[in-house]
């Protein structure tokens, strides 16, 4: 699926240079479930953003789906992102002014998909995550767990190869956190590749591989026994 070599991300201001990612080497195969862990500020989210092409590496190589993407223009990256990657955020990032159905549909709006098919897929995915009965509600009328289920539905409705989740359970209580994790596990079982940033060792256990980071470097990789 993706392969990084010597990949660095450096932020520069007038006076300070911060190395967020320091010569990372990382390979993720199709169908893997990878959890990224580490203390705050270690570069987890930056790595996730670079994987998701929301941020570009300062140096090094990033091969996605067999093609080099480091240095591609924004429009190209947006196109790859749209076709292949779904996102789930800690703070859900739902649009308050849109209903549940419209929020889910958003991920299909910018694909060339006829509206009838779009509707079908939205209904199907809402059913799958168990949010169909709330389709007409606004995000503010839902609980945190329900909101994150909507976000998951939005992330998967475009049938992306890769799902990126940035602390998806961070804003949820234990019960709802578990619920979301089981949902991700199921998606992985169905074939989606998942990369998740988390602080919770318990939730990291759902992943097949855990990558530990410190100061912008990959410290240890640990594979769960199959």
């Amino acid at each position: 699926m993706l392969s990084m070599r010597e990949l660095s991300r450096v932020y520069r201001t007038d006076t300070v240079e911060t190395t967020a990612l320091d010569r990372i080497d990382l390979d993720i195969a199709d169908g893997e479930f990878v959890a990224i862990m580490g203390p705050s500020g270690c570069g987890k989210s930056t790595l996730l953003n670079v994987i998701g092409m929301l941020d570009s590496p300062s140096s090094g190589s990033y091969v996605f789906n067999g093609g080099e993407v480091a240095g591609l223009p924004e429009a190209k990256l947006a196109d790859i992102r749209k076709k292949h990657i779904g996102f789930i955020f800690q703070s859900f990032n739902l649009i308050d002014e849109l209903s549940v159905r419209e929020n889910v549909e958003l991920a299909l709006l910018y694909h060339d998909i006829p509206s009838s098919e779009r509707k079908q897929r939205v209904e199907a995915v809402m059913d799958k995550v168990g949010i169909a009965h709330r389709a007409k509600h606004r995000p503010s009328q839902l609980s945190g767990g329900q909101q994150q289920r909507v976000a998951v539905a939005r992330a998967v409705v475009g049938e992306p190869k890769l799902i990126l989740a940035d602390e998806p359970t961070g804003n949820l209580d234990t019960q709802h956190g578990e619920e979301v994790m089981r949902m991700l596990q199921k998606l992985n079982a169905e074939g989606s590749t998942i990369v998740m940033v988390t602080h919770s060792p318990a939730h990291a256990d759902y992943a097949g591989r855990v990558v530990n980071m410190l100061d912008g470097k990959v410290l240890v990789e640990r594979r769960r026994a199959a």
Partner: protein
Amino acid sequence: MWRSNLIAGIRALQKNRTYAFINIFGLAIGLAACIVLLLYVRYELTYDDWLKDADRTYQVQLIHTDPETGIRTIQQGSEGAAAAPLAKDFPQIEAAVRADSERPVFLRRGEPVFADMLAADPAFFQVISVPFLRGDPRHALDQANSLVMSRSEAIKQFGTDDVIGRTITRIVRGEKVELRVTGVFEDLPRHSHMNFGLVTRINPQDAADCSWGCVNGFVYLKLRPGASPDAITAGLPAWEKRNIPAVNVGGAMVSEGDAFDWRLVNVRDVHLSGATGDDPARPDNDRTTVATFGVVALLILGIAVANFVNLATARAGQRAREVALRKLAGAARAQLIRQFLGESLLIAGLAMLVALALAELSIPYIAAYLGTDLHLAYLGGDGILLPIIGLWLVVGLLGGLYPAFYLTRFQPGAILRSNRSAAEPPGTGRLRAVLVVAQFAVSIGLIICTLVVYAQIQFARSTDAGFRRDGIILVANMDRKQLATQSDAVIAEANRLPGVASAAGTGIWPASGQVLNASFQVPGRAKPITLGWYSVSPQFFDTLGIRLLAGRTLSPDRERDMMRLPLLRPEETRDAQAALVERGTNVVVNRLAAKQLGYDDPQAAIGKTVRVNTFGADMGLMPVTIVGVVEDSRFRSLREAVEPTVFYNGSYYSRLAVHYDSADPEAVRHELERLWKRVAADVPFEADYADAKVAEMYRVDRARGLSFAGFAGLAVAVACLGLFGLAAFTAERRTKEIGIRKVFGASIADIVRLLVWQFTKPVVVANLIAWPVAWWLMRSWLNQFDARIALTPGPFVLAGLIAFAIAIGTVAGHAIRVARTNPIHALRYE
């Protein structure tokens, strides 16, 4: 606490300079425009209220109702003959006076010069109580050679205002007459319908020569205190019957009272009475125009206040944390409301200071452009300090009330817990949407009105008036005694001057204020009809390029084409008139006159004879035979209907019209002046270019139209400014949403489209509101004009497109900036 509030307010402004600039400057423009316009409206509404006893001083106006069309025309001038019978029959009238404008020739340092003078009854200054500096207003006009002058006229003539007893030489029919100064009055203020600097006593003989049917000047009345003008107006129909004798016109008994009515108008209302005056230096106005300016003032103010509210509510969310923290620190809601109202008043106050500066700077130019002496005074009777303070409080409170109450309703816990700063008070989005739609509707409406007004002004200037406007010099005073006896010789000489293509004498000319009518008896009709009756020399039609439709024009070689009256002794004149009535004359009529005489086809009118009452009913009616029909010409303003006109050659003209084909018109003018000096040395030479006279005729229309356009543009600019600020806040508020959309694949174009559409929707709604309203308004405005442009969809569509362009232009910049931001930053924004 006030200090903390003030600091928070000033820092809030400093923190967002764009916001502060848009808010203060936008409001300042709005306030300045509003102040200037309302000053103008007040100026127009307070004409002549400076006059002592203005409340009981009235002008008698003359109303003519066309029996054919029912069209009413009202004029400020009326028959001097009405004054005495009015005073006699109505005991409520304290005094009634006549006043007629004259242009006598004075000798100044040996040179003849024209002077604008009023000839009035001795009691004139008891009715029109202008303040006297010197002399006694009750006796100032006791003598036939009395002369009363304004202070500036005295200084112009003598270099001092201490001039009682000094004399001025007037030339009357070639003889010198000494006028003795008996009084000096304060100059009339500019906002008066009257405009005189010299007043002498009216000549009783002139007045007697001109009886009923002869409109010679103005009649003013002073009522006794407490008397009602309505009672007099109600009594006028009976008064007409008692006082106006019916005369026999071709067998029909006709009274002047049949076609004319009179009404009393308070001097303060004359300016806006809709009655035509004849003084181009005192153009009248109408209530609709004044009201329009008032409405535009309020609309601009409304737009500016709407901006203020919009920006304040849009920004409210950003200050939610401050409110929350102040509440935690123990601030009561009332204190916070006071704080926000205080801030609003601070901004409104700053804006007002800028507005007053803008108004002070612009008023001299606007006043000159509109032909007024508008000025800005803070203290005194016409001081605006109190209204300004009132306006400041109203705007400040109006702008601050809504945000103040909404902001202070936030629950501090919720805001701090959610760590959200950009919360939006519920309902403010809808309020903003309504205000934005209203702003756009007003802007679109004003743009439409501007386009239509401008098109009509252009139309007035460029429309085919049916005569040649370019290359014409008009020389005045052909009807002075010294010229009248030799007018045909002068015309013949003018025709021989180098550079002159053609010259003619005429009683009607471009932008003329002179109306001469006669009544015509048409065979088979019971009642006579009134048509224009103007003497022109045979070259008139060629000189002014008036197109012949049928028959021929007047010829100098046919005896019956002329109706020359030798200026002889009265009994000889009577004989000559009787001979003419016996013989008859040939005339040329315009298309409209032919039609009113019953001939829709110009050709059918040729050779037909009607009879005209021109020498008085006792002389009998003179037969006139139509030998030619010419195209209609529009010599007066487009506001007035085309006049049905009969042209005859009476060898007596008011103007000499000269069509030049020289590249150097000034040389032609100079040649004309030399000719003039040779034949009438004691009559000053006065000449104008016809195109300049026509432009002058539309100057006020144009100035008012362009001022309207200017203020409309200002309103649109203020609305744009607000929209620009609002777009910035909206783009900022939707940053998170835009980030999410981008993460899920939206391109920059998608995002720009999204934001632009948000501001395009209100424009669509605004168009739906503005179009019908503007259509209705412009239709009634255009109806004032006899000749007018058609109200096509063009201006409406164009205004809509301009509004779309404005919306897209103001929003697109922000939209592109936000759309280009990396979505990570956008998502971190929360």
